């Protein structure tokens, strides 16, 4: 056991000396390799944590949201529809939701305006998300001027600001009373944006959705399962930017493996010939190449994984910010709850460490099984 350990320590000593002889090449290889693992791991961590967060946060979203479609687009829904839906057996509650968007022409940002189901805010006051407060440069007690649909100013007082920890759901929210919402958009009192429906038995949701469409042919029910599925398919690997990032990373690995698998340099071939001629066995040469491959690929995998974890969970995935922000002025800065999927890491390990190590060993095996004299002369 100790002899075997010492043998491997000697081989590792030689492998590291061999790598250090081509210091620049191997350090740059390690840096690029780490960078690729870092990008892929960051993406995997970010997407997994976000999907998990979406599933947990939206678990209590309405069982069903009923919209009204008009000429293929969503239209305001009459509050009278609520009565018809309420009369369907199995429906517990139907709550009209009032919400919409407000474009701020001064700061160029889009906000989501919403009226809470329970009247928790009095007319003339608003609650705002942390990013709205930052964007508008307002604090509690300040007044904000909005422009109504009639182009008249509407002054509202900030009564509270949601903490930055709520950014993932409330960054761009402005919560106001129904009276202010209706005054702002000249919104008819008999209409709502959509209806939130609660169903007593979750297994009856699809049946009730069918009954809603039967009773109200212009209605479009959206089930909670569809809402959750939307976030399950977000950042799908087939999405445009994901394909670009993943294919760039896979191509880089192909180039690495190709560089290694196409054979050894004349210098490396001569080195193997000399080692064989001074008494090294083929197994020793293969161990040498194995340790050379491991020193690069395992270090890159571990370093890339650790850096990706820090990037996503401590620095809020700042490198992805520009891609995620797009044309938006208001970008929610949020910290995800750390969650790492062991399966993803295992796949990443098998995709990064094993092919590179194998591509290092195979050409060395071909060179080590030839005559040392021929290897030295080649």
């Amino acid at each position, binding site marked *: 056991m100790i002899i075997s350990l010492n043998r491997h320590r*000697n081989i590792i000593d030689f492998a590291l000396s061999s790598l250090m002889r081509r210091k620049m090449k191997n350090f740059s290889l390690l840096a690029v390799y780490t960078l690729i693992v870092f990008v892929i791991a960051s993406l995997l961590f970010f997407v997994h944590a976000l999907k998990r967060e979406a599933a*947990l946060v939206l*678990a209590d*979203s309405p069982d069903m949201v009923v919209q009204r479609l008009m000429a293929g687009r969503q239209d305001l829904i009459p509050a009278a529809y609520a009565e018809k839906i309420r009369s369907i057996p199995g429906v517990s509650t139907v709550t009209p939701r009032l919400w919409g968007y407000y474009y701020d022409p001064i700061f160029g940002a889009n906000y989501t305006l919403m009226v809470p189901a329970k009247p928790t805010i009095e007319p003339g006051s608003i609650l705002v998300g942390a990013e709205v407060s930052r964007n508008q440069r307002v604090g509690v007690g300040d007044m904000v001027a909005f422009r109504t649909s009639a182009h008249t100013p509407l002054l509202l007082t900030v009564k509270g600001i949601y903490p930055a920890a709520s950014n993932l759901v409330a960054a*761009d929210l402005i919560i106001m009373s129904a009276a202010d919402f209706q005054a702002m958009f000249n919104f008819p009192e008999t209409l709502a944006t959509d209806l939130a429906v609660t169903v007593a038995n979750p297994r009856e949701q699809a049946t009730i959705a069918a009954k809603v469409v039967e009773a109200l042919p212009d209605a479009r029910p959206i089930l909670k399962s569809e809402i959750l599925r939307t976030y399950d398919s*977000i950042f799908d690997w087939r999405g445009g930017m994901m394909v670009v990032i993943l294919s760039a990373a896979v191509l880089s690995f192909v180039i690495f493996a190709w560089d290694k698998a196409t054979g050894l340099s004349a210098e490396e071939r001569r080195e193997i010939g000399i080692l064989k001629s001074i008494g090294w066995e083929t197994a020793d040469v293969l161990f040498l190449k194995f340790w050379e491959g491991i020193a690069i690929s*395992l*270090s890159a995998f571990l370093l890339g994984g650790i850096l990706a974890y820090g990037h996503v969970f401590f620095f809020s995935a700042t490198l992805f910010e520009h891609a995620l922000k797009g044309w938006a002025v208001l*970008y929610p800065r949020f910290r995800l709850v750390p969650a*790492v999927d062991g399966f993803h890491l295992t796949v990443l390990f098998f995709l990064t460490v094993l092919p590179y190590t194998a591509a290092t060993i195979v050409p060395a095996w071909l060179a080590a099984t030839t005559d040392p004299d021929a290897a030295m002369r080649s």
Partner: protein
Amino acid sequence: MRKSDQFLFFTAFIGILFVLMLLSSRLGQEAANAGLRERARLARELMLTDLCLFTEARYTRHPSMADLHSAFQDHPFSLEHFPSGSFISPPARYER
């Protein structure tokens, strides 16, 4: 110290860091879940249906409430104008 020992110590060190990273993601859950529960409470009270990820267009702000062909608003194979539209797949029932 021999080079092999330096390498083995370094690998062991980053290996332990890596394992600690995996463990901390599990151990830190309880503290982090308090914030998560708060977000879930807010979503329940306000009857929210979407996360605030992309505010650039209405169909990327509320993808689950968007028109049927969003994020391909104009027609199913149109080029997407907003960058975040490329992160969002069409609804599952329209995938082929």
